[in-house]
């Protein structure tokens, strides 16, 4: 990430807690043209390859949280997304399983590998959300967990002797599962997203979408988008964080047409036209999970994994985490949080800190 010179921040600005747009360089670079007469090849473009090699060696973390009422297919969807059993399904028809009385947070980590690239994937499940008769403030344990991860990272960052690579347990992406009622969002959906969209990247998905016809799907999506807009809820990709025009046009299309993705998940394969596909077999037809005419699973997968994975991490680090950090430092009067940092009293962190490099 390019490190530009920071704009000077006053205390007032900091206390506003508005996440700053990425700082533009104060001294613009003079464009230098390539001398066509210069023969030869420098080799700067190999930096991409070098970065790739490094990434492959170190691997990277990705933490995804799933939130929604029980039975909406959260675990199945995550397993389908990552093509492995990364989430243990809570439902097994022959086992007795009780709905937990309060929202629990269960984080399970797996290392999956593809094309030489290792990913440490952590799936954070939230059983018990929205299942009780009284669901007042059931989002609080979730908000608490997310902030705790920010706090952990902050403590590590503020250390004198820092680890070379701070383990990143922060939630990069929160998939929120909307029940396919076909009517509107439920009051609980609104409340959850209102509280959490400022703290974590929320990607709303319409679960078990094989229960809606094409018209019903499109009508429902429109209603949901409108309701979210009216209530000031910004889901990922947030408009204010589009970096440039290219991003904006690409994201606009996704925001205004595709999202929320209407998905179907499955861990069973069936034979269709000579191919084995993931799907659901009913007496009236086979629903193919990866068929774009049937549902938008492929769109969600491409979005989360193939195009926006890195961006999800960046927005989490540069925006959500920074907001948290600024608030914590502000609350502490400009001092780093907590004591016991090797038992010494540190000089106070200046009130206008530079944005931390990645």
């Amino acid at each position: 990430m390019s490190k530009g010179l920071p704009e000077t921040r006053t205390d007032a600005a900091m206390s506003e807690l508005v996440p700053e747009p990425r700082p533009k360089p104060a001294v613009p670079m003079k464009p230098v043209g390539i001398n066509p007469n210069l023969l030869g090849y420098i080799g700067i473009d190999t930096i991409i390859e070098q970065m790739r090699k490094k990434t492959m060696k170190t691997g990277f973390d990705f933490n995804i949280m799933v939130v929604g009422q029980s039975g909406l297919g959260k675990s199945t969807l995550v397993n389908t997304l990552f093509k492995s059993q990364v989430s243990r399904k809570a439902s097994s028809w022959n086992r007795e399983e009780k709905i937990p009385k309060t929202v629990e947070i269960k984080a399970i980590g797996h290392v999956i590998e593809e094309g030489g690239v290792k990913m440490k994937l952590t799936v954070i499940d939230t059983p018990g959300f929205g299942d009780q008769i009284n669901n007042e403030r059931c989002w609080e344990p979730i908000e608490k967990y997310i902030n705790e991860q920010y706090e952990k990272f902050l403590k590590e960052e503020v250390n004198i002797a820092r680890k070379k690579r701070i383990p990143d347990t922060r939630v990069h992406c929160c998939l929120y599962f909307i029940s396919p009622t076909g009517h509107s969002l439920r009051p609980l959906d609104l409340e959850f997203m209102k509280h959490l969209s400022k703290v974590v990247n929320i990607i709303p998905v319409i679960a078990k979408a094989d229960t809606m016809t094409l018209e019903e799907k499109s009508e429902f999506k429109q209603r949901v988008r409108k309701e979210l807009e009216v209530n000031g809820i910004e889901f990922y990709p947030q408009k204010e964080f589009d970096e440039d025009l290219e991003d904006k046009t690409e994201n606009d299309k996704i925001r205004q047409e595709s999202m929320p993705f209407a998905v179907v998940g499955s861990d069973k394969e069936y034979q269709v036209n000579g191919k084995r596909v993931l799907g659901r077999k009913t007496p009236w037809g086979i629903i193919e999970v990866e068929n774009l005419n049937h549902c938008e699973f492929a769109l969600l997968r491409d979005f989360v994994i193939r195009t926006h994975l890195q961006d999800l991490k960046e927005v989490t680090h540069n925006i959500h985490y920074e907001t948290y950090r600024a608030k914590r430092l502000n609350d502490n009067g400009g001092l780093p949080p907590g004591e016991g940092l090797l038992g010494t009293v540190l000089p106070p962190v200046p009130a206008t800190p530079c944005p931390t490099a990645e």
Partner: protein
Amino acid sequence: MDKEYVGFAALPNQLHRKSVKKGFDFTLMVAGESGLGKSTLINSLFLTNLYEDRQIPEASARLTQTLTIERRGVEIEEGGIKVKLTVVDTPGFGDSISDCRHSPHTPSWLPVVRFIEEQFEQYLRDESGLNRKNIQDSRVHCCLYFISPFGRGLRPLDVAFLRAVHEKVNIIPVIGKADALMPKETQALKQKIREQLKEEEINIYQFPECDSDEDEDFKRQDAEMKESIPFAVVGSCEVVRDGGPRPVRGRHYSWGTVEVENPHHCDFLNLRRMLVQTHLQDLKEVTHDLLYEGYRARCLQSLARPGARDRASRSKLSRQSATEIPLPMLPLADTEKLIREKDEELRRMQEMLEKMQAQMQLSQAQGEQSDAL
């Protein structure tokens, strides 16, 4: 002329003709979370368009809305028989985030329970009144309770509501939007729900046994139908012409069409047969003979209860408690005269009971004295 033939075998026909003239009325309640296809199913069952004028509120509006009771009436005529059907809806059910926040005794669905009881109460008053010629039966004869196909069985809300109403109304549990499920999932869900109903001791409407003299086919069909409870239904009022042999009512998806009236696709036919074609009358009878009588007995018993209390709680008895009437006051459309007559009746009953109490107290006090002596 045959001397043996008296002729009262024609009685059922006479009854039939009278009922046809009178017409039937039936009140059906539909309850369950919003978005489970309740309205579509009602329209499908009775081939009407009861919900044309319905406005679906937005989520932010539902945040503050409380549960309401809505009644819609429709007259259906078929084969010379008129049915006056009343459908009772409960919009707002299950919407509240913070249900039971202040007290577990005031859940959001209490108005539904009260509504059912109010209909009993109204009938009780009418029945005890002087003019009984034209009693309107507004009691709820059946409650179709919709269970979500997306859950893993009954949710805590379902259990709590069903326990609150199962002794007051015939419950027929139904799985809505059943086209979300594959056949194995449907079976497993039904099994789970049946187990939960048994565990929580919730009494649903029991379809009566068929007569022993029915033929085997009928018995088998009947057994199959009973096995498919809770009914997994799909509703639709749209006709799909997908190139099949004939147009069908169904839902058209890119991967196929769900046919509402296909028994391999869903239990709609079973539900319609059992609810409308064979058990409409039985539902009314059970409501009257079992549920209403239970309510009536409880009501009148609590009136008589002060005389049967034990010594320990006798101190609580005072003029105050004796005047408590379990029948809450309802603004009636009846004439003032009728109200006054009923009040007088009740007052006379109270006086009688108080006399009985006093006598008992006296005799017990005398007994004590003799014991002490």
